């Protein structure tokens, strides 16, 4: 009888060990899934930092080209104004003469549609 109860005891212990083993495995699984989240966050952060770095470089490049374009536009504008002044100084005399002749040269006459009425 004693050996029988001893045998049952042994089986119960084996069952308990098996259950503990499964519990351990389940705990490991839970831990592993939490680890997945942590690793994902770490990888994501790294990726974000890399993207941020690339973005900063692109931004700097764009801003650099922008200031270069700004200088170019300013230069072109000054060049155009210089051209305008040159062209103006060359032609102003003839234009003023033309305007003054329009002001001063006239032939007073009656309008073509005028009919003398008594």
């Amino acid at each position, binding site marked *: 009888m004693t*050996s029988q109860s001893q*045998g049952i005891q*042994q*089986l119960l212990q*084996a*069952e308990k*060990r*098996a*259950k503990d*083993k*499964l519990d351990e*495995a*389940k705990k*490991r*699984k839970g831990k*592993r*899934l939490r*680890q*997945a*989240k942590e690793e*994902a*966050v770490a*990888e*994501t952060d790294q*990726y*974000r930092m890399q*993207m*941020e770095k690339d*973005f900063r470089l*692109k*931004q700097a490049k*764009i801003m650099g080209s*922008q200031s270069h*374009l*700004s200088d170019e*536009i300013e230069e*072109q*504008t000054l060049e*155009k*104004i210089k051209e*305008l*002044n040159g*062209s*103006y100084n060359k032609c*102003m005399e003839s*234009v*003023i003469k*033309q*305007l*003054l002749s*329009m*002001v*001063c040269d*006239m032939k*007073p*006459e*009656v*309008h073509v549609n*005028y009919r*003398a009425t008594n």
Partner: protein
Amino acid sequence: MALTDIDVQKQIKHMMAFIEQEANEKAEEIDAKAEEEFNIEKGRLVQTQRLKIMDYFEKKEKQIEQQKKIQLSTMRNQARITVLRARDNLILELLKDAKMRLSRIVSDEEIYQDLLDKLVLQALLRLLEPVMIVRCRPQDLHLVESAVLRAIPQYMRLCQKHLEVQVDQTEHLPSNAAGGVEVYSSDQKIKVSNTLESRLNLAAMQKMPEIRGILFGDNTSRKFFT
């Protein structure tokens, strides 16, 4: 046939081994499943976040590109306005110069008298009223009076009409005006401005496209010339 203690012990050991093996297999299964789920979950989280990050930076890049285009457009516009303003200033300078030269013409009394004769007659022929009032600068009164005297017979010859012309002795054009005359109907409701300034402004307005063309060349952004 009853089992001996040794047989029972053997069977128990056998059963215990079976329980242990089952547990080991299940534990391995759980571990394998955990690893699989770990990879799936991690991959899913990383992918989701990556897409979000990519989307965020794509939007930011587009924003910067758009900003760049807007700034560039603004700068070009500003530059164009600066050039147009410079052109306008030069034209204003030209008109100012022309006005100064008008005052030089006026300073020669003989030339100015001849000019006034024409200006008065032209204004009278424009208005064609039986009674007209001529207004001039105070310093031109005597010149205008003689111009009116010369204009009346010419007017009557051209229009076959009698007329009465009064030179306004009370109200005058500003003495700093370039010269010329203004002619009014008797009730002063109709006015013909034949001052040198108004003629210059009119000439400039009529000729402005031509003047711009001569001074600055053709407008390259204009496609059709009528």
